[in-house]
């Protein structure tokens, strides 16, 4: 599924993450990550976001991540929430198993 509008989800509070989603003119996935734990977990966070997008068959998107030490389950939830905001709840209805 291609993203056609911008959206965001999350906060900049400690333990949370702010995810911004933007459509881009290609089928790529671009991730811009800024994290308080980037040295230790930067690669793992990128993999987690790629995996979350892949499971929902999302492409053509830039994901801007401002992480304040969120756990994996929080990052996954915020990315999915931003995607649903950008695409509508049919993404949820069709993909419970992929969440």
């Amino acid at each position, binding site marked *: 599924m291609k993203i056609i509008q911008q959206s965001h*989800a*999350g*906060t900049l*509070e*400690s*333990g*949370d*993450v702010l995810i911004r989603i933007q459509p881009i003119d290609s089928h790529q996935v671009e991730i811009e990550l800024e994290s308080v734990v980037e040295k230790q977990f930067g690669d793992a966070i990128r993999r987690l976001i790629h995996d979350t997008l892949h499971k929902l068959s999302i492409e053509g998107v830039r994901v801007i991540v401002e992480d304040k030490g*969120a*756990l994996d*389950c*929080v990052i*996954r*939830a*915020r990315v*999915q*929430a931003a995607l*649903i*905001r950008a695409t509508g*709840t049919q993404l*949820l209805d069709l993909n*419970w198993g992929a*969440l």
Partner: protein
Amino acid sequence: MSKLRRSMLFVPGANAAMLSNSFIYSPDALMFDLEDSVAITEKDTARLLVFHALQMPLYKNVEKVVRVNPIDSPYGKLDVEAMVRAGVDVIRLPKTDSAEDILEMERHILQVERKCGRAEGSTRMMAAIESAQGVINAPEIAKSSRRLIGIALGAEDYVRDIRTERSPDGIELMFARCSILQAARAAGIAAFDTVYSNANNEEGFIHEAEHIKQLGFDGKSLINPRQIELLHNVFAPTRKEVGNARLIIEAAENASRQGLGVVSLNGKMIDAPIIERARWVLQRAEASGIRQ
């Protein structure tokens, strides 16, 4: 012994940090909230946060309750769908006014259980009664579903509905508390008290906890982790109660060996209800320790 449900700690569903670390406290149950503590604009992300938090291995050993939005709101059905799929133990219905509210929620839960392959009936329910109509209908509500583990008083909405406000001695809640307790006991389920919302007033909290324990409630909803230990201590039997209970059990066992149905201990008759209560005190002491 039935499962201990003295303390149910509210965790706001939209607060990522609290969802990430609430497992460090040890309430009898954690109650993730998708309803009043979540702003309308955050309902969708809170639902997903709780959906993933419920599946965290760190929450494996605690009973997980989720307070969903009313089923007739735009969020209720999606909340139930997500929580049942995530493996929630108990769905808490807010603002339950009638048995039909429970039955409607139950039908929806069953649909989701069938869709996702979860065992039918494995999602339990509890109902919060928060209006005069709900209190009047408490006996029917309490008996409406085999999934119900208990009913709870939601006092903030209730006092608004009966046009008063909460006071330190809680006289305005007496009728509702007694009605809910009687309805729960008649149906054989648990009764839970409302929150004490001033987290900094320990004395007031303990006073209220002792009051609801004396009435017969199983436990109470909590808004601050500091209240957990205070509440568990209130529910723990005293050293004297435990000592008496041991003497009663001993006397009863002796009587049984001698083939006697009734026995006397220090001039007081000991019969079946007293022996049962003594066993219950010892079980409570095992779970809660001795009151400090």
